[in-house]
C-alpha cells in the first residue's frame, strides 16, 4: 500500500510558522483535515502538492523524497485549491482537456475521462458553455472534476464543498467515497459533517500543528464526558448560549430549548452527558 510520510514538516513565512514540525504517515483512505482559519491547513496542502517548498522536514512517498520524484510524484496528484481561477473564455470541456494535457493524459483517454467526470459532477449538459457563465457551485464542481482527472492516487481537496448546495454535497461525498479505494484522499473543510460522513481518519490542526490524529471515534473520545445536553426555558436560552460553549441549540414544542454544551464539568442541574460528535470537538478546540 502507498505510504505518504511527513517528517518534521515545517513552513515559515518570515517570523510566522504556518506549519510546525508535522510528522505523520498516511496510507490509503479518506483523511479529514479540520482547523480554524489560519491553522495552516492550506499551507500543509500546498506543501503536499509541491506548490511550496518546506522550510524544514521532508515529504516522502514510499520512502522517496517527493521533491526528487518531481513529475513522477505530481503524476499521482490531484488537487483542488481553495482559491483558484479559471479561463473564463474556455468551455468546461476545453478547460478539462487542457488540464488533462498538463497532467499527461493521452488525447483519446482524456476525451473519455473528461466526459465521464463532467457527467459525474453533473456538468455534462453545460460542458460546451463558457466558464464565465457558470455559477459558483458549478465552478466548484468543475474544480472537483479537474482534481480527479488522471485518476490520481493522492487526492488533495481544500474546502471542496464550498458553494455546493446540500444535494451537490451529497453527490460529492458519494463520489469521493467511491473514488477513495486504494488512494489517499485528504480534504479540508469547515463543514464538519462532510468530514464526519466520509473521513476514516481526522487530523485536527491548530497553530500549524496537528494536535489530534485518529478515527472520528478516537478523536471524539478525547472529549468524552465533556458534552452535555441541557433543557432550559426558551426565553433564557440566549443568556445561557452567551455564557456557555454551546455547539447546538434546538427549540422544542414544550417551550423549552435543548442546548448542547461543551464543558469540563456539568454546566447546570439536569444536564445529561451526551455522546461527543466531531462538531463538538471542533468547537472544543476552536471556540474563539
Amino acid at each position, binding site marked *: 500500500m502507498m505510504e505518504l510520510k511527513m517528517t518534521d514538516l515545517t513552513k515559515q*513565512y518570515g517570523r510566522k510558522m504556518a506549519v510546525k514540525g508535522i510528522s505523520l504517515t498516511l496510507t490509503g483512505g479518506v483523511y479529514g483535515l479540520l482547523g480554524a482559519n489560519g491553522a495552516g491547513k492550506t*499551507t500543509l496542502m500546498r506543501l503536499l502538492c*509541491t*506548490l511550496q517548498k518546506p522550510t524544514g522536514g521532508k515529504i516522502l512517498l514510499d520512502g522517496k523524497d517527493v521533491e526528487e520524484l518531481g513529475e513522477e510524484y505530481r503524476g499521482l496528484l490531484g488537487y483542488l485549491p481553495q482559491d483558484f481561477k479559471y479561463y473564463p473564455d474556455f468551455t468546461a470541456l476545453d478547460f478539462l482537456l487542457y488540464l488533462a*494535457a*498538463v497532467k499527461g493524459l493521452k488525447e483519446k483517454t482524456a476525451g473519455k475521462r473528461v466526459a465521464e467526470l463532467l457527467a459525474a459532477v453533473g456538468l455534462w449538459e453545460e460542458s460546451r458553455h463558457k466558464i464565465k457563465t457558470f455559477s459558483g457551485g458549478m465552478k466548484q464542481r468543475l474544480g472537483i472534476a*479537474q482534481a480527479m482527472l488522471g485518476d490520481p492516487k493522492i487526492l488533495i481537496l481544500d474546502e471542496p464543498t464550498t458553494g455546493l448546495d446540500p444535494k451537490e454535497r451529497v453527490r460529492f461525498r458519494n463520489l469521493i467515497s467511491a473514488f477513495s479505494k486504494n488512494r489517499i484522499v485528504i480534504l479540508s473543510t469547515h463543514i464538519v459533517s462532510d468530514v464526519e460522513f466520509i473521513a476514516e481518519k481526522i487530523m485536527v490542526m491548530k497553530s500549524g500543528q496537528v494536535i489530534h490524529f485518529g478515527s472520528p471515534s478516537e478523536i471524539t473520545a478525547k472529549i468524552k464526558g465533556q458534552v452535555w445536553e441541557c433543557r432550559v426555558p426558551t426565553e433564557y436560552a440566549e443568556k445561557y448560549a452567551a455564557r456557555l460553549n454551546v455547539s447546538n441549540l434546538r427549540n422544542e414544542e414544550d417551550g423549552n430549548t435543548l442546548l448542547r454544551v461543551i464543558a469540563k464539568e456539568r454546566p447546570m442541574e439536569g444536564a445529561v452527558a451526551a455522546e461527543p460528535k466531531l462538531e463538538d470537538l471542533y468547537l472544543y478546540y476552536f471556540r474563539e
Partner: protein
Amino acid sequence: MRKLIFFELRKIMAKRLTWAMLLVAVLLTVLLHVSTYQNKFAFDGQRQETGKEAVALDQEIAAGYEGELTDEKVRQMLSELMPQSGPQGLNVIYIYQNAMQSAVAARFSDMEGNWNGLSVSDVFGQEKIKIGYVDGWLGAIQDMTKVFLCLSVVVIVMLTPVFGGEYGGVEQLILSGRYGRTKCAAAKAIAGLLAAFGTTAAIVILNVALAFVMYGKIGLDCSILFAPLSFTEGYIPFNITCATLLKYRILLAFTGIMGAAGITLILSALCRNQMTALPAALAVYVLPALLPFAETSSFFRILALSPLYQILFVALMSVRQFAGSLLYAIWALPIAILLMAAGGIISGKIFAGHQVSA
C-alpha cells in the same frame, strides 16, 4: 506537447485585447501606406500630379535617367529638373518638384539650384550608384518602421499574460499537474514565441504586399544613396539597394519583435502578475532609447543591437558597413536568437520554480 502548445496559443489569441491591438496595427498599416501614397507629389514643369499619378510621373521621370550615376547625368538633371527660382525668396535647393529633382538637389546643388561643383566621386567616392525611382520604397519602409514599433508594443501586451496571467490562481492547478513545470512551461514559452512570430509575419506580409501594390518592383535594384532630401540628411549612409534595405527592414522587424518577446516572457514569469509584468516589459524595452549615449559612442554599437533600436532601424543600420550588403545590423540576428532562447528557457525555469504565495 503539441496539444499543450495549441492550448497555450489559443489562450494568447483568444483575448479580445490581442485582437483589438492587432486591428490597430492593421489599420495603422493601411492608414500610413495609403496616406503616404495619396500625399505623393510630382511636378515636371508641365504636369502637376498627386497620389497614384504622382508616383507614375516620378517613375516616368526617373526612367529617363536610369542606370549608373555619372557627372553627365548630374548636370543633365540639374539643367532639366531644377526650378529657376523659388517662390517668395525660398532657396531653390529646398523646393520639391519631384523625387529625382530633390535627389540631385540634395547632393549636387547650391542654394540657387546651380551645380555646387561636386562630382559623383566627390560625393560617393568610388561607389557605383545605380539610380532610379526609390522614393516609393523608401517611404514605404519608413512607414513600416512606425507599424513595427506599434506591433512590438502589441506583442509585449499580448505576451505579458503568458506566465503572469496564471499567477492569479490557475498556476496552482498547472504546477501541481504532472507536466506543469516541464512540458507546460515549455509549451507556454514556445506558444508565446510562435504567437509573436506569427503576428509579425502577418503584419510584415501585409506591409510588403501593400508596398508592392503601390510601387511594384521599380526602384528595388537602385541605390538608397540617390534619394530625395528627406532620405539624405541623417539617413543610412551606405550604398545598398532598396531591396537590401527592405530585406534588412524585414529581418530587423522579426529580430526586434522576437527579442522583445523573449524579454517579455522572462518578465511575465518573474513578475507577480501581468499588471506588473506589462510596465516592467515596456520599461526594459524602451530603456536603451533613454540612455544618454551619442550615436558616435562605442557603447552605442552595443545599445543599437537592443530590440528597440532594431525596430527603430535607421540608427542601427547606420552603424557600419562590413562589405557590400553586409551591415553591422546583421548582428541583430544572433542577438535575437539569444534573447529568444534566454526568454524561452529562463521564463520556463522561473515558472517551474514559482512558489504559490501564502
